[in-house]
């Protein structure tokens, strides 16, 4: 049951991402990407990471994608339907580099498959202990980083 749900969600993620990277309207691309993030959040829930799933929905789909949408709507981008899709000279090197990376990784993984370990699900209590005991300094650094990003965004966004 859970395996079937995982493969269906994986297909949803891949198809939505494919639509979003081949879409010439930036707003449509963002909507497809939000769909893909919702499916990815359910995959995280299936992998015993409910907190990461919740943060994915709240921060990624809820905050970051909406920030993208607001900025795209605020900029006057003219006529998005007149934007040309990338031509062969644009996507041929991308296709070459991407396929080489993908083929190398898949060959490596299929050649040395990792052995199956006994399942040992992570509890939320373990998550909280590791986050605030082992990586407490990192939490402080991340909070300072968010503050610096706020100051930088205010500085860049002010009007002369």
């Amino acid at each position, binding site marked *: 049951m859970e395996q079937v749900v*995982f493969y269906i969600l994986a297909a949803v993620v891949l198809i939505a991402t494919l639509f979003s990277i081949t879409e010439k309207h930036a707003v449509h*691309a963002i909507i497809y990407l939000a769909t893909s993030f919702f499916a990815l959040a359910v995959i995280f829930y299936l992998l015993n990471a409910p907190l990461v799933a919740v943060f994915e929905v709240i921060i990624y789909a809820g905050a970051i994608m909406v920030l993208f949408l607001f900025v795209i709507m605020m900029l006057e981008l003219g006529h998005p339907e007149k934007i040309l899709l990338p031509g062969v000279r644009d996507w041929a090197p991308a296709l070459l580099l991407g396929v080489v990376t993908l083929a190398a990784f898949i060959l490596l993984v299929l050649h040395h498959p*990792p052995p199956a370990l006994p399942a040992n699900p992570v509890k939320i209590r373990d998550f909280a202990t590791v986050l605030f005991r082992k990586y407490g300094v990192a939490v402080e650094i991340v909070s300072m980083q968010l503050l610096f990003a706020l100051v*930088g965004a205010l500085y*860049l966004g002010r009007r002369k």
Partner: protein
Amino acid sequence: MIVPLTHLLILSTLIFTMGIFCLIAWRKNIIMMLIGIEIMLNAVILAFVGGAAYWGSADGQVFALFIIAMTSAEVSLALALVVYLHRRKKSVDSDDFSTLRE
């Protein structure tokens, strides 16, 4: 683990490759380049959460949380830069921002 780690890693690599493809193919449009970076970061988060589920340790989930926090800082700065550049040149085409060269 509901599925083998191999399948998770292959899914993560597929998403990451699509992100690289978006970044390189759309290198004329700054907003689509940022979307490609978001896709790649999500693939990395999926790899971290899959590793946490495989080894039964919470460290991978903690790092996924740190990546999400870092991404929100990065996106706010990057979009502020996009607004600033659009205010100067009325464009999001990366070829228009070449004043340092001239």
